């Protein structure tokens, strides 16, 4: 443990307005304020001495955040403290939003799933955030709350760069709304795709992670495709070119090749200690192809 505790302050607000007031006070505090949800990401650099002294605002005691995630019709809404384990335990999520369960299972060990939060994964804005591509694929929206009010925006509009986002210093992610996709009448079932290619099977950081949702009409023509990638760009990305390449056509071998070719324009992979640029590019193309592959319908 390389951080010196005395250099850090911790606030444990018990209600939302107190939490927001603390966040708003960040500008006046040396080192600012740092919201702390499940701590599974933040405490890694904290242990390593890589977090500058700050005031942690622990969200665990906030009364409003203790409500469990809820279903409103076809929309699943998670709070700031909804964990991966919470998701895995919800049978309706398993049935209607299976990508959330798939991602939660592979995101980290059970010990991490029991503590890590979806909102924290979004807030940290890591390009390797394994929880984000599935949320992007489901077209999730975020609710951001500050003392100035609330706003909602598409998750796809949230990230601005490597570990940066549109979230202001006084804003908290207070909800993540995930709509359940439904097939049109007579159409084939919605295709949901998730594959994480990590350094090992579980408890791994992804080299490439992909998630996709694909809707078709009764004739089998793709009406809507959403495909998202992690670890291949400074941010987790919607692969718009892949989506465009697949939309308006049947899922055949040519579609799969079009998706595989298109993905190159959706990413900017790099060499790092976990993998290589070339490998990531090849795997991403393979994942786009697999997403579109007709035999997986």
């Amino acid at each position, binding site marked *: 443990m390389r951080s*010196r*505790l*005395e*250099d850090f302050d911790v606030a444990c607000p018990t209600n939302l307005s107190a939490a927001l007031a603390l966040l708003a006070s960040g500008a006046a505090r040396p080192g600012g304020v740092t919201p702390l949800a499940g701590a599974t990401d933040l405490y*890694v650099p904290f242990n*390593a*001495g890589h977090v500058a002294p700050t005031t942690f605002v622990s969200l665990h005691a906030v009364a409003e955040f203790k409500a469990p995630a809820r279903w409103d019709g076809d929309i699943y809404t998670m709070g700031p403290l909804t964990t991966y384990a919470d998701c895995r335990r919800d049978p309706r999520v398993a049935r209607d939003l299976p990508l959330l369960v798939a991602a939660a299972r592979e995101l980290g060990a059970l010990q991490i799933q029991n503590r890590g939060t979806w909102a924290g994964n979004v807030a940290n804005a890591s390009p390797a955030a394994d929880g984000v591509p599935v949320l992007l694929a489901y077209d999730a929206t975020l609710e951001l709350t500050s003392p100035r009010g609330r706003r909602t925006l598409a998750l796809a509009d949230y990230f601005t760069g490597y570990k940066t986002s549109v979230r202001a210093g006084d804003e908290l992610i207070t909800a993540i709304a995930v709509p359940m996709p439904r097939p049109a009448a007579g159409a084939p079932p919605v295709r949901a795709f998730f594959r994480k290619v990590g350094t090992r*099977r579980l408890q791994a950081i992804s080299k490439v992670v992909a998630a996709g949702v694909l809707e078709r009409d009764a004739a089998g023509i793709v009406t809507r495709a959403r495909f998202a990638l992690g670890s291949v760009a400074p941010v987790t990305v919607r692969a718009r070119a892949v989506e465009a390449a697949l939309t308006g056509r049947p899922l055949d071998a040519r579609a799969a090749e079009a998706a595989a070719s298109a993905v190159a324009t959706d990413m900017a992979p790099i060499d790092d*200690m976990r993998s290589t640029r*070339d490998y990531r590019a090849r795997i991403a193309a393979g994942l786009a192809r697999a997403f579109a592959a007709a035999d997986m319908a």
Partner: protein
Amino acid sequence: MIGESPTRTDGAAKVSGRALYIDDLPFEGVLHGKTIRTTVPRGRLRGVRFLPGVPWDEFVVVTAADIPGQNVIVLIEPDQPYLAHDVIRHVAEPVVLIAHADKGLVEKAATLVALDIDPLPGVFTIEDSVASAATGDAQHGADNMFKRYHVARGDAAAALAKAEVVVEGTYETGAQEQLYIETQGVVAIASAEKGVTVWGSMQCPYYVHKALGPVLGLPPEKVRVIQTVTGGGFGGKEEYPNVIAGHAALLSWKAGGRPVKLVYDRLEDMWATTKRHPSRTTIRAGFTRDGDLTALHIAVDLDGGAYVTLTPVVLSRATLHAAGAYRCDDVTIEARAVLTNAPPYGAFRGFGAPQTIFAIEMHMERAARVLGIDPLDLRRRNFLSAGDTLPTGQTLAEDPGLGTMLDEALAALGPRPAATPGGPWHGRGVATFFHGSGFTGSGEVKLASRAALEIAPDGRIRVLAASTDIGQGTNTVFTQIVAGRLGIALAAVEVVPPDTDIVPDSGPTVASRTSMVVGELLDRAAVDLKMAVEAGGPPSSGPEFVARAAAHVAAGKPRHYERQYEPPPGVSWDDATYTGDAYAAYAWSVHAVDVTIDRLTHQAEVADFVAVQEVGRVLHPILAAGQIEGGVAQGIGWALYEDVVLKDGAMVNHQLTNYILPTAADTVPIRTIFHERPYAHGPGGAKGIGELPMDGPAPAIGAAIADALGVLLPRIPFLPERILVAVDAAGGGKP
């Protein structure tokens, strides 16, 4: 009792959290130490600055100038300082030690020490090191060579010239981190008046004992080293504890004898401590068209890192295993270990042998493909058997039975798995090999290890040995050997925790020697003790023997029975010519593996693994299988996952997040089969076991990947990125 699997003696303590490791032990008034290390690979130290931000006057600070004795870490050569004071040879080299009672403050202070170093150009590859020395910039001797060996039998050059087929190949292995889950740690109390006592996590208390005297300027009798429960070693706690123990002792000395704790966190442990030597081995092999091996020329290069440490001995074992388990009358082995500006490489299970066995086994795979012979048939054709002679001139008295072991391994794997359309590539591979038990050549004679038994007043028997239980189960096996010989209950035998004030020097806990060598000493001591207690009377056992032993002590008769190593008859070795009996005994093994490779990710995974081995008599089947399974898992890690990424010679991925060990989710149960051929000079017939299983997985997996893809990868780890490149280069994998 021998051959049974009683619950390990420390089992209950370990599963209940009661076993106390070094970081668990309370020391009144303890100071927390920290090592300030370089971040440049080579240079000259100009000065040290202590920046404001902490109350420096409250700190204990040690630099080279504070060392009361010699600033030299005692191992083989006196080239490595405890604290650098002039020449900087590698990243993470220790320069300053600090300590304070407030651990958080120590961490903060560590960020406020500035080392002013004039950088010099480092060398990070064997070629660069040799080239740099040739231009006059040698850092060790005249040529940057730590050690060379030349082993020759017959005339390899002539045999190669005559060979019908010559196959050449070069094979490389990467560094590997031992990754004991308990990091390095010690506590020291040291002063001129009272001497020094060190408690810690270690394999070799007497290595530490030997090192502490010179650095503190103390005679041996004022040095005491106590091993605490040790959370894994695998070689990583063979020589490195000399360093950390010396550092803690220096801090305590400067602090006037207050206890100082130095426990590395994982980041420092992975960044700064020893790892397996990277290697490159080039083999030229001559064959007849039918596949008879007629000539071998093997050139072995090890990257030694910045200081000599144990590298010459590692190179020796690499050399002596380089020709593999194959008969060949004309062999030349040229081995060298070279300086680079990397943190020193060191002991790791297998100790050089896994590197060269990888090379020779992969080369047999390559040769089989060149010759158009099945790789298994090529091996069988050339297996060592009784009467064959190893490159050092040692003749095998017994047939190792490799062919039978290979049959058994293949039978255990069963029919090849059926491929599914679009499913993964499947491959099957084997490795066939041996591993020498105990120290090389005359090493055991020089060690002259001692171990003793002592009768307690109540008649129970105390085992006095410096051998450490680092998880492998030494204490349980010693208990079995002694209790078995005396015919008493296991509970009537107690292994005294290693403490150099109490136990004799039984040699280091390394080299697969503890059960075979030290266990044999204890078995002989038990014979002596039994004869003395029974004193010509009727034999006895169980509680009756314990009662007689108590009466023996009460009568004032000798309580202490010690034995010293004697070489088995007929074993001889000549260090000058590097010929003779390299090892008194060899363990033999065949590994067979089924591998799958994902068609998209190109990730290779082990689907099934069978390890057949002949280790003499199996003393404790559960512990023995545990040694094999654990060693195989480390070998699988080295082969498939564990990539030490180096920059300026130092590990950049020195976190568990980025240095990848296989987890339980990546691991299939490893199947072990023992052939037992009792060895005449080991306790109950046992030979060495600990290192053997490290040797086979990498080449067996390499062979399986070659089988699956038709592409032979000459370098580990077999990361999916490398497999993908290799498959592309070969024009795609098999359909």
